[in-house]
């Protein structure tokens, strides 16, 4: 007997069979991982279970009985909850308000929050969430927002919990905490479906793992009895040999130089941190990495460099030219590309087609327009080239609305656009977030190719592994300051951790 059984699910989108006759069985109390390349159909399958999509074919059974799930409300009634890949929270509501939203208790029309407050507080304590439930969502970090989503499910007493790539947006520390939470919940008898691209995480906590490839179920395996290699082979369909082709760096001229940069925080309410007296150079032919725990000023720094936010003090020069006060477009034209942290906020116009998203900063160049008219044929052709080169998968190719693309493929659109511009300086913030292993490797190699062709790369990453493997030099940020400037060859993971947590610092000279 399975607590949830999805039988022969088929879901078709225009131009693509997202789920092709998939049967998935979830046991009570297990953590069941779902693995597959970008666009394999994982989110779709989970959305079917949560009632967001109606499948063309197939049934869902709960405890052996057929369940009709026509919407999230039905799912909720059956005890199914979901944390989406892109959160669904109301940003100017408080944590508490978000949690009770939709299941508020009222007495003669008046909201009764006291009871809810106590219940939420108790839950938050039980799972050691350490969350201020009266803060507005827009003032709390992504990791906290995810806890709100989890609390939402717990508050509704859901027993089947779906996590769509929960770890993609978290810091390593937060990931550990989440893993513990998931384990606790499973031990209490809750059943968990868990989407991730990271095999280590599956190895760490999943009991079983179902692998999807191009919409089909390849198989379900017992994690303890399977190796990571087998799982990734199932996922990709061939042996995967991950390798980085990292040559010795040929450091050249300074491309960007930052002096005495200081700033009050963008959202001073949440981060008391600011940037204080930041100094560094990024040189041609190097990948300079900004490492640090999330919320230590990396976002502010990137906003300052790219022009998304003005700065209070200091200077930024690009190829010797002062761009401290330059507009975003001027900076882009001076050779800066930017893979933003938040792909939905900054990186994409979701309602534009894939093709239109690939010309977001270049639509006005002679290549794509003449006398103010867009050259649609050229734009389409350009998009098709990027689709080929970056293996971007979608239902309708260059004319797919980006909204209808899988998360990882959306990310690839941004990467393709920014790397294709062949910028002097590529500022990449968490570029591999949400990508499958193959795509990550491809992107890392692309970053290296940029650097080998004499360009500069500024990589902002929370993932130590990425930091250590890809970069030529590491700057560690802590509370808005640069507290270390190290070579990955001379530093250990543990040491880096000490810098990141503020336990250790060194004098940094430019």
């Amino acid at each position, binding site marked *: 007997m399975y607590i949830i059984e999805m039988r022969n699910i088929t879901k078709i989108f*225009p131009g693509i069979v997202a789920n092709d006759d998939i049967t998935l069985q979830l046991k009570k109390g297990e953590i069941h991982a779902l693995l597959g390349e970008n666009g394999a159909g994982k989110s779709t399958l989970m959305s079917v279970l949560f009632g967001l999509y109606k499948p063309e074919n197939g049934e869902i059974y709960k405890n052996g009985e057929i369940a009709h799930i026509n919407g999230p409300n039905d799912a909720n009634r059956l005890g199914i909850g979901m944390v989406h890949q892109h959160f669904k929270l109301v940003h100017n509501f408080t944590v508490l308000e978000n949690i009770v939203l939709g299941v508020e208790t009222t007495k003669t029309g008046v909201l009764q929050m006291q009871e809810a407050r106590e219940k939420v507080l108790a839950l938050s304590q039980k799972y050691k969430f350490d969350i201020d439930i009266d803060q507005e969502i827009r003032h709390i970090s992504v990791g906290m927002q995810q806890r709100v989503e989890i609390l939402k499910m717990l508050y509704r007493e859901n027993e089947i919990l779906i996590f769509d790539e929960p770890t993609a947006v978290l810091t390593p520390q937060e990931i550990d905490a989440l893993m513990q939470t998931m384990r606790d919940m499973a031990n209490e008898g809750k059943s968990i479906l868990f989407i991730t691209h990271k095999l280590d995480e599956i190895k760490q906590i999943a009991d079983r793992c179902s692998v999807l490839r191009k919409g089909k179920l390849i198989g379900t395996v017992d994690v303890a009895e399977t190796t990571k290699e087998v799982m990734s082979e199932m996922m990709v369909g061939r042996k995967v040999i991950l390798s980085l082709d990292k040559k010795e760096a040929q450091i050249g001229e300074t491309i960007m130089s930052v002096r005495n940069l200081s700033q009050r925080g963008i959202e001073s309410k949440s981060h008391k941190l600011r940037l204080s007296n930041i100094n560094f150079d990024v040189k041609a032919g190097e990948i300079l990495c900004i490492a640090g725990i999330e919320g230590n000023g990396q976002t502010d720094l990137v906003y300052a460099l790219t022009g998304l936010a003005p700065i209070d003090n200091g200077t930024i020069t690009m190829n010797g030219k002062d761009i401290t006060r330059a507009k975003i477009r001027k900076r882009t034209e001076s050779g800066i590309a930017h893979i933003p942290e938040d792909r939905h*906020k*900054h990186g994409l116009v979701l309602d534009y087609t894939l093709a239109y998203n690939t010309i977001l900063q270049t639509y006005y160049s002679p290549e794509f327009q003449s006398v103010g008219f867009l050259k649609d044929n050229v734009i389409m052709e350009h998009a098709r080239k990027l689709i080929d080169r970056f293996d971007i998968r979608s239902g309708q190719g260059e004319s797919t609305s980006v909204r209808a693309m899988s998360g990882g493929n959306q990310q690839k659109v941004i990467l393709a656009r920014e790397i294709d511009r062949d910028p002097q300086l590529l500022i990449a913030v968490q570029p591999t977030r949400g990508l499958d292993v193959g795509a990550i490797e491809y992107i890392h190699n692309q970053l290296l190719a940029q650097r080998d062709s004499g360009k500069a790369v500024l990589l902002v990453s929370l993932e130590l592994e990425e930091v250590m493997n890809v970069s030529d030099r590491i700057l560690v940020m802590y509370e808005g300051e640069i507290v270390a400037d190290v070579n990955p060859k001379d530093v250990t993971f543990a040491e880096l951790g000490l810098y990141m947590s503020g336990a250790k610092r060194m004098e940094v000279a430019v």
Partner: protein
Amino acid sequence: MKRDSIMSFLSSLVVLVIGLFVGFLILLFSNPGAAAGAFSTILTFGFSSMRNIGDVLHGATPIIMTGLSVAFAFKTGLFNIGATGQFAFGGLVAILIGLNFQGMPDGLRILFALVAATAAGAAWGAIPGLLKAYRNVHEVISCIMTNYIGMFLVGYFVEQHAFFAIENRSASLPTNSNLPTLGLDRVFQSEILPGLIRSSDINAGFFIAIFMAIVIYLILNKTTFGYELKACGFNRDAAKYAGINENRNIVAAMMISGALAGLGGALLYLSGTVHIAAGNNLLPYGFTGISVAFLGLSNPIGIIFSGALVSHLFLGGARIQLNFPIEIVEIVISIIIYFCAFVFLVKTFLGKHIGKLFKGGEKS
């Protein structure tokens, strides 16, 4: 793309049928005996003769313009409920020019009136645009204010400089200031009594409206300017990230939106059939434009059709005033039109439930 068009069309049809049905119920309650007849009049009167068809198209002209105005702003993420004021302002300028400047050749004077009205509408639209872009004042608030200021200004100017006291309205233009009919009056005419032939009021204004719809369609879908505007409308942050100057676009969008409404005012008042009544009334055309824009799903080409449709209902509605009090007629027509506001809801609903019928196959 093709599927989307089908969905848009279907959802417009659905809201219309629902609106018509509810309208019918109201007629039924008001005067059961005459309801069926009146309803069929509403539906068919506009088609019943060449002259009526001409009048439908003529009536559609100003509301196509305001519909375009609202839709254009909407694509940039702005809600221009100020079309009414911009329309009135444009109309006023056209009337003043049409009444004066008799020394100019007719063609030139009319052209001057059209251009000046367009500019006046643009200027009136620029105010909420500037306030929004540089002072972050919500455009709905400032549009309401410019509507009222426009209303009083227009009232003042009409009474001081273009007044026809006997009928308490703006003075009639000399016929040489009216838009040319281009022979349309001879196409759209019918014999209303044996031997008595009457022409429709239709004139070149209708073609200008169609032309503008096509221009707006091209701007929005084929130009870099449209690309920028829509990017701002869809996702402000991404537009900023892309280096698009959002403030400039807000002002430009509101100016163009105002220009369309202002031109609409000129097209209406240069036709010699309608006048601005004295006293302070907000003109309905801007608000009807909101419905027209919605019903046409903000698609410029769709708006030509939704404008014609709404005009058709108005004409039929005017006809049934013999059997129904004017208030009931207004209510019925308004209900039909305001149901149009649900069109996006219906489209989403259809997308979810009927979308499957179109699955696969459609690659645009």
